[in-house]
């Protein structure tokens, strides 16, 4: 038999904190129609609703990873507020000005508006940088820093004669990435 079947707000918050996928999936399912409606009602497509919703979900997830972050409202309200903010921003970019028809309570997020999109900006910048970095550097760095491969495994996979050679290559890659990333940030600022 399954354990306690009712998931409370606190359960969902914990699930996001500890990346419990079953409950996260349930939460995802629960509020997608709300954002689909929000975006749909305000001249957006289903694909755009998905983007906005996933970004809002990510913002909530990432914030909950911070030990000092406290969710001061319902998850639903939070997701709505972030989605709303994100969609307002996109609409403004598309049309010059925008107004949203609301149907839920929301937090205004006036001062933290930048913070809402900051992480996606960082992500995009790194994505572009890694793209420019090219292979084999990208794979080496991702394998070492993201996938926790050892240098021996990487040397083996990428065809280096030994781990030391691979390591030297890795530092070269890292320094190149740093230059590229700085370049991107400077362009954008």
């Amino acid at each position, binding site marked *: *038999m*399954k354990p*306690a*079947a*009712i998931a*409370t*707000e*606190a359960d969902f918050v914990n699930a996001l904190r500890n990346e419990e*996928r079953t409950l*996260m*999936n349930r939460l*995802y*399912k629960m509020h*997608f*129609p*709300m954002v*689909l*409606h929000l975006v*749909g*009602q305000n001249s957006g497509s289903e694909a755009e609703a*998905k983007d906005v919703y*996933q970004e809002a*979900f*990510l913002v909530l*997830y*990432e914030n909950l990873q911070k030990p000092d972050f406290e969710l001061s409202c319902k998850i639903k309200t939070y997701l709505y507020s972030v989605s709303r903010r994100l969609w307002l921003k996109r609409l403004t970019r598309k049309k010059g000005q925008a107004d949203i*028809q609301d*149907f839920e309570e929301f937090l205004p997020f006036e001062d933290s508006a930048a913070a809402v999109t900051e*992480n996606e900006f*960082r*992500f995009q*910048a*790194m*994505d572009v940088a*890694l793209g420019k970095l090219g292979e084999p550097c990208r794979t080496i*760095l*991702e394998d070492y*820093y*993201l996938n926790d491969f050892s240098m021996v495994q990487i040397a083996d996979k990428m065809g280096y004669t030994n781990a030391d050679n691979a*390591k*030297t290559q890795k*530092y*070269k890659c*890292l*320094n190149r*990435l*740093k230059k590229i*990333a700085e370049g991107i940030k400077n362009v954008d600022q």
Partner: protein
Amino acid sequence: MLTNNTNTERIEQYLEGKLQGAELTSFEQELQQNPALAQEMAEFQLLLTDLRHYGQRKQMKALLDGFHQNLDQREVEVGLARYRTNFRLLRRKYFPTIAAAASVALITVFGTLFTLDYVRSLEKTSQTNYRSLLRKIQLNQNKLNNLENSLDTAVLNSIAINRDQYLKGGGTGFAVSADGYLLTSYHVVKKSDSIFIESTVRPDQRYKVELIFGDEEADLALLRVNDKKFTTFGKIPYMLKQDLADLGEDIFTLAYPREDAVYGEGSVSARSGFEGDKAAYQVSIPVNPGNSGSPVFDAAGNVVGIIKGKQLESEGVAFALKSPAMLAMIGKLPPDTLKVPLNLPRTNRLAGQKRVAQLKKIQDFVFQVKVY
């Protein structure tokens, strides 16, 4: 370039705690004396943070994409319909007259289907009864057709109507006395050979129950546990409210539309039920097959009603028998029906608590009713 690599390597080794002894001392010394190195280390850390953040986000995005692929298109549409049929929104979006017409149409749609299914359930009732109901359906159908033409069809199309999603057997029941009495909807247990209650919250609680009394008109049934294993439900945390709930009051329910307790919330949308039924409320709680017999609570945790009848799986319009009507049925029980006195709970231990805390207490007293 080579120096740069060496520096990066030393920085990384230092950060990973791999520098030791003299190497460590000299590095730390250098760090203090050489601001360029300290700067380089800060930049290195920033780059790694960004890189790791990128990795996590990428992984998370893949996970969310997976969730998205798992979405059941029908469920999404039902969820969406709930927002679309939201009256407040309609009022804002359409002209007030159209909005009013839309809500009438919604009630008629659900009402018609409600009646249709009710007719189907009346297998053994008399022919006259059957006919009169059929007429009603035709009348409603005509009304509906007229309305449909005059309405923005998008409003109607947005409601996911699935005629196959009617309630069949099984439902929800809730305890009304510590020593084994429960209430549920009469239609849930009407055609039963044997009845069992189950709780997914407390899997050890699976009991055989018997039908003590059923009131077909009110659609209410009193059950009692008839099982050797059973001792007590424990002290019931809620009571049945003697007064009527107010229009617009926040209400919630806990039910077993599937093998899992499901929470739903809404408000009292009308003081009368289906076709002006004075003994029932119209409530805006999303109901699913299996919701029949589930208790409806007010914000303080008093039982104000019980979900009755058969409903579409769509949300928006549901009906609940009022608690005073429930109390009236219990009060009018024929004298010999109860072998054990029915002591209704007299105190509410949920008032003022947060919803989550209330549900934690309530969940132990709400059961899935299985009819065989």
